[in-house]
């Protein structure tokens, strides 16, 4: 589904990713963990094309995306739910969801079908249903996160990348977010998840990569890492 080989990414002179390799197979949930500034967001930005990687190759469904624009990469079925929610503040909940389907509309999907998808998504998120005509800026943090995830689902992704979806949420909402991610996988979407909330993420995921200052320092089955006390202490702060 997704394959990174020796990918390096720079911000000016600063090398944020140092030849990282990772792959995500169809149907998996793979989690990318690591401390602040490790390069997790940079990895996702390199995959979705918002930042150009300098070296190495990134392939989505076998296609090299090095020369593709972000909107073309979405077209391959790879959707990135960015860090910090980033809902469109002055659009309503419904409009935000419709915008999530931009790539389908560009490829000729009929608006009536998109409207059905909007209804399905709203049914999945009752809080959003109640606020469907409200502007996104008026939503709570949790509602905005649900909207960001729902908006990502609107593109009917084959691969969904989520950047710290549980950040800043109350514990009960964190659970809800992880529950939704599991549902997304059950619907057949592959998931690449970035999380600081390592334990919860490892419980959910099949495999994990540990990133430290731009390098992958560990890779393996999620359960294995979860029970590796040394690793947990060293990289995940207990």
């Amino acid at each position, binding site marked *: 589904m997704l394959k990174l080989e020796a990918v390096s990414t720079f911000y000016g002179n600063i090398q944020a990713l140092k030849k990282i390799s990772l792959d995500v197979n169809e149907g998996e949930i793979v989690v990318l963990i690591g401390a602040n500034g490790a390069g997790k967001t940079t990895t996702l930005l390199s995959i*979705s*094309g*918002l930042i150009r990687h300098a070296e190495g190759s990134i392939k989505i469904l076998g296609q090299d995306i090095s020369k593709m*624009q*972000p*909107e073309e990469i*979405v*077209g391959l079925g790879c*959707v*990135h739910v*960015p860090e910090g929610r*980033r809902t*469109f*503040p*002055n*659009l309503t909940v419904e*409009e935000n969801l*419709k*915008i*999530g389907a*931009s*790539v389908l*509309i*560009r490829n000729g999907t009929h*608006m009536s079908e998109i409207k059905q998808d909007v209804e399905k998504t709203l049914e999945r998120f009752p809080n959003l249903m109640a606020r469907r005509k409200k502007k996104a*800026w008026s939503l709570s943090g949790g509602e905005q996160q649900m909207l960001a995830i729902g*908006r990502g689902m609107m*593109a009917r992704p084959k691969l969904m990348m989520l950047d710290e979806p549980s950040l800043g949420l109350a514990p009960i909402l964190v659970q809800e977010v992880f529950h939704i991610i599991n549902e997304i996988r059950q619907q057949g979407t592959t998931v690449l998840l970035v999380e600081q909330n390592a334990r919860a993420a490892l419980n959910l995921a099949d495999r994990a990569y540990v990133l430290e200052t731009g390098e992958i320092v560990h890779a393996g089955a999620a359960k294995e890492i979860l029970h590796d006390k040394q690793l947990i202490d060293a990289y995940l702060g207990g």
Partner: protein
Amino acid sequence: MFSMATQLFINGLAIGAIYAMVGLGIALIFRAVQAVNFAQGEFVVFGGFFAITFFSTIGLPVWLSIICGVLATMIMGYIFQRLVYVPLQRSTSITIVVATMGVSIALTDSSRIIWGAAPRLFPEILGSTVIAIGDLYVVPQNLVILVAALILFITQYILFERTFLGMQMQAVAQDKETAALMGIKVNRMIAITFLYSSGLAAIAGILVAPITYIWSTMGSGLVQKAFVATIVGGFGSVPGAILGGLFVGVVETLCGGFISSTYQDAFAFIILIIVLIVRPMGFFGEETMDKA
């Protein structure tokens, strides 16, 4: 006294509608690229001159001249976007703004070289016979301006608020990176914004030409007024640009008629100072506050 006030009010609304069209172009481009386009006034001038050329020099009928003038200016706006904005899009806003100032000067001089320094006239669309309504005398061109402005603003409202394209343009204005992640062609949306804004400017030039004439250096004065209008209305706000334009046009025309016509142009800036003191964010300012 009453009919004079009414008459001045209508004249003010008409010139205000022109400020609103120019200001709207500035506001839309600002929302899309976070930079003020100081060359917007030159698109008014070129729009007017293009139409005059199609009409007087080439001899096309009035309506066709207007359409060709607007289309030619839109093409110019598109080229401007490609040559000035696209290469600078990763630079800071101030770089882009200074570049638009440079283009503004270059275009002013180009228009003088092409069309000369003398003011040129474009025919009034409904002729020049003043229409009498009771003891009110209305210049037909003012009615043309008001009706055209109304149609434009309604069309724009539908385009921007009721269509998927408009929704995508709003998304781009609010957050370009996330818009790209949604699969929106961000650069195409920005190009459409420039096309539309230069078309608006051209229409403003063609509509105002029969009243004030068109001359090569008129752009900077118009941009100043339009800029005042957008600040009074609330910078970056679409309804703000429209209402701010009408407000500035009406107040300066009334003050010019009743107080001093010599200082008519100064009134716009007096309004600006008063509004900035009383309500610094302008009439519709909140929207821009939460985007800052």
